[in-house]
């Protein structure tokens, strides 16, 4: 535990050093002091461990093969360092043999100049040539077959969750006993995979053509909430609680008559009255599932509040305005985003993800919490997964994975090439040409629903 604390301190201070030296000259006393501090911290660690290898894998840092836990105090520093490393295509930094301040200074200079280079990694490697105490290596891309295996695992976990959600609702309807332990285990699997393979999981939620909207919606809201909770720095235990609360948020819909739920046309006022009861019905259903525990208490709160809206303009109407629960506000964003991008029975036309995002922004401060929305937008990016985009190369594609370091440069599945022929390749919009210019950029977005594009073909 002590070692982990030391490593977190090293990474945090390294980020501060880089950020400070981007503003001040390397001879500035603030930078000099930070160089000494970072050198000291690293040496203190190397004294016992001999080597410190920091790897950036996906969104996470690993130190000597141990994944570092996301922590709120270090969130900005970790994010900053992760972005800076990705910009330079660096995935590994190794420290060994005890450092001198000159070594750290050389590393810093190399790092800064690489930021302006067309081939940052090469610049970095050249600058550090001959140096034994600090070495760097390329950012590793997940191999295709590994990605394929992970995709299978993610898919299986996702459908397990949907199938469970279906069973759960049916059991509540027929008043059968519900296995909450199992629900916890399922959400634990989702949390694990979201921590490791967030993009793959978010991709699953972008597929909207399933028959059983209600069950998929519950799981999607759970996935989106966990992903947002992870960005906020919630612990694994808290993520599990949040994921469960999100999975159960619409439990009250089991009481809404099926003919209303499946009504293809707009609801009458009376039908809306019934629909608006589902938050209370959710509380009722959850509290009678079993003897309450902290998870059920929290889930009941979320079930009641998820349509309340940030400014209480939603439903149910309440006599006293108590501050809304953090999880309720997270779930509200996830719920609205998924609902808008889905073809529900009572709203047949789903919105494209980027459009849904801009509507959410319009609702910031009224229906949704502005602070949490800011985190959400940073998570899904300018072009959320599932967005259909035209590139400046005249290629048409679907956003496949977002890139937190470059929110407007996601990975794209190209479905039509520049000549308008069908194709299937994946490109990364951060790729640059020999002159250091980005090879591709997004120039237009399209509503995929207008063209009956089946996202499952590209994201599953």
């Amino acid at each position, binding site marked *: *535990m002590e070692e982990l604390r030391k490593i977190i301190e090293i990474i945090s201070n390294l980020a501060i050093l880089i950020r400070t030296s981007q503003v001040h000259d390397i001879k500035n006393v603030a930078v000099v002091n930070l160089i000494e501090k970072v050198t000291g911290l690293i040496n203190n660690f190397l004294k016992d461990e001999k080597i410190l290898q920091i790897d950036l894998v996906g969104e996470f840092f690993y130190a000597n093969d141990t994944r570092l836990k996301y922590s709120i105090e270090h969130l*900005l520093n970790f994010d900053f360092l992760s972005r800076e490393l990705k910009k330079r295509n660096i995935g590994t930094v190794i420290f060994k043999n005890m450092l001198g301040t000159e070594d750290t200074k050389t590393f810093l200079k190399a790092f800064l100049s690489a930021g302006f280079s067309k081939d940052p990694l090469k610049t970095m490697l050249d600058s550090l040539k001959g140096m034994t105490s600090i070495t760097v290596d390329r950012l590793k891309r997940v191999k295709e077959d590994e990605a394929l295996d992970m995709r299978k695992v993610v*898919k*299986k976990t996702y*459908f*397990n969750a*949907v*199938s*469970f959600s*279906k*069973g759960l609702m049916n059991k509540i309807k027929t008043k059968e006993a519900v296995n909450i*332990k*199992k629900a*916890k*285990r399922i959400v*634990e*699997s989702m949390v*694990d995979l979201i921590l490791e393979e967030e993009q793959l999981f978010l991709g699953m939620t972008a597929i909207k053509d*399933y028959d059983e909207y209600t069950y998929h919606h519950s799981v999607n809201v759970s996935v989106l909430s966990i992903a947002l909770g992870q960005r906020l*720095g919630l612990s694994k235990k808290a993520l*599990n609680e949040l994921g469960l609360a999100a999975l159960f948020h619409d439990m009250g819909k089991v009481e809404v008559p099926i003919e209303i739920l499946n009504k293809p046309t707009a609801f009458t006022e009376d039908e809306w009255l019934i629909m608006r009861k589902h938050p*209370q019905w959710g*509380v*009722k259903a959850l*509290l*009678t599932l079993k*003897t*309450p525990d902290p*998870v059920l*208490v*929290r889930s009941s*709160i979320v079930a009641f*509040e998820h349509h309340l809206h940030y400014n209480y303009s939603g439903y*149910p109407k309440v006599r*006293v305005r*108590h501050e809304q*629960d*953090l999880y309720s506000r997270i779930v509200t964003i996830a719920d609205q985003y998924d609902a808008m991008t889905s073809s529900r029975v009572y709203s047949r036309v789903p919105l494209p993800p*980027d459009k849904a995002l*801009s509507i959410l922004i319009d609702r910031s401060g009224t229906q949704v919490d502005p*602070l949490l929305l*800011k*985190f959400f*937008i940073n998570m899904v990016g300018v072009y959320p997964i599932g967005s259909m985009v*035209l590139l400046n190369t005249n290629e*048409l594609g679907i956003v496949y994975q977002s890139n937190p370091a470059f929110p*407007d440069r996601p990975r794209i599945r190209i*479905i*039509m090439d520049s000549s*308008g022929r*069908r194709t299937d390749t994946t490109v990364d919009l951060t790729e640059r040409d020999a002159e250091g210019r980005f090879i591709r950029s997004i120039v*237009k977005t*399209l509503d995929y629903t207008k*063209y*009956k*594009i*089946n996202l*499952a*073909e590209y994201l*599953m």
Partner: protein
Amino acid sequence: MSEVTPIRDLLQTLLKTKKLVRMYPENNPMYIKAINDMYEKTVEVFQDIENDITLNIRQYEILYDDKQVYYNPEKTDNLALFFFKDGIRELKFLRGLNKEELEDFLKIISLDEKELIDDDIVTLLWEKDFQHIKYVVDESVLTEDEDYELRATQQVLEETTSPDDLLRAYRDAMDAEGVKPTQIVPLGETDLKALMQEFEKDSEPKLKKLVYIISEMIYQEYNNKKELEEIIPAIRSVLEYSIKMADFESATEILKVVKTAAEDKEISGDIKLLLKKIVEFGGSESVIKNIGEVIDRIEVEEGPVKEYIQQLDRNAITPLIEILGELKNMRARRVVIDSLAILGRRDIQNLVKGLSDERWYVVRNIVYILRLIGDKRSVEYLLKTIRHPDMRVRREVIKTLGEIKAPQAVSTLRDHLNDPDPQIRIATVRALGSIHTEAAKRLLLQRINTKDFLHRGLEEKKEYFEVLSSWKDEEVIEFLLKTLKKNALFNRAKNFENRACAAYALGLIGSKEHLKILKKYSDSGNPVFRDHVRNAIIRLEASHGRT
């Protein structure tokens, strides 16, 4: 040496430690030693083997390097089965395992079935997110419907995107408007600070919030019988949970909301009845039993518990009496007694049923509660209890009868003036003094005049005279003066005691005119008499000044 032996030993130590961890609290030296020993053993084993410790878990056995290191065919207390049943198939302890992790792990595996109601072993291990303990779980148990994934995938892939639609999209894209991307504002220190504040607020307990929600639901639905009926189980559930969590304020809040709703004149009798049933549930046997368990186990604030009980209906009286006999904690008993004193006022008939309890201490407590209530309707029941076989109960009854000032008790109390126990006799005298009727006075005077009285102990006799002095009437004063002056040929010492008591009583009456006569005896040769006389004089002079 084979690596199997140290692993086998390690598991034996683990089993021993597990028992000790379950048995002793964390601050107990046995617990601390067990953890230290286990840690030392683990460090030792890591020195003896080359790799990490990887254990394969089977139903009844544990294997290390394909060799059996643990076997138990039993279904209970079986370490292998403990892990296996929740799906754990491999358990790995990595080098670098520290004591804190090991202790957390031991705490988890030491939980018994009752403590594992809400979470299984995998969830508990998962929540700890150990850095040096890893496990492999068979997730197949999580699959509800084997074919669901296949069906859903086939269905979603059924309608492939048509080439024409794709082409149309492509062509339209060429003519579409340029992109206006969403502006992403990078997160800054202010956002982080705001988030930290959110987390701080989020750490507050959630039950109060749920109670508020339940209250909202009651207010929204209480005039709709069907809806109200349906939310009653949820209300009960939160009420029970609040008590389990020792949050009596929340439980009280629920009852208050229910009672406020019940006061609405617009609602029907049916609904009133439903609301009443919720309050009755709050005082039901099962809920009161839970209250007993909570207040006996932990030191809760008395105020909120009493406030909760005050909200209850009379049906709570019987279960409260029941737990009164079961509580071990004195503070807890006092809370229940005080609460029964409040509830009992509403239903004396129900409370006095407790006088028939087989446990003497419960009967004594009920008598005490009746005294606190002071309702004269309880006298007839107290009189029936006055012959209780336990002296402690009898004494309490007598005291209570006195404090209730029940004149009808005088004739019954007469018998107790002759009780073999001096404490009972004294209690009876005091009770008669409290009742303070002519009959009571007469009874005391009669007793003092009996031959037998002379031979009672001085303290008992003083008690009679002290009580008698409270009448301060002519008859009593005359009697006292007569006793003060009375000489005797026989039993002189005992007679002096009576005279001393009379002097003492005159001092208590406090009349200045008795100073003169008292002074006459201030140099008596009998030390007991003399001392009492002198003390009476001092008392009188203190209040009236020297003459």
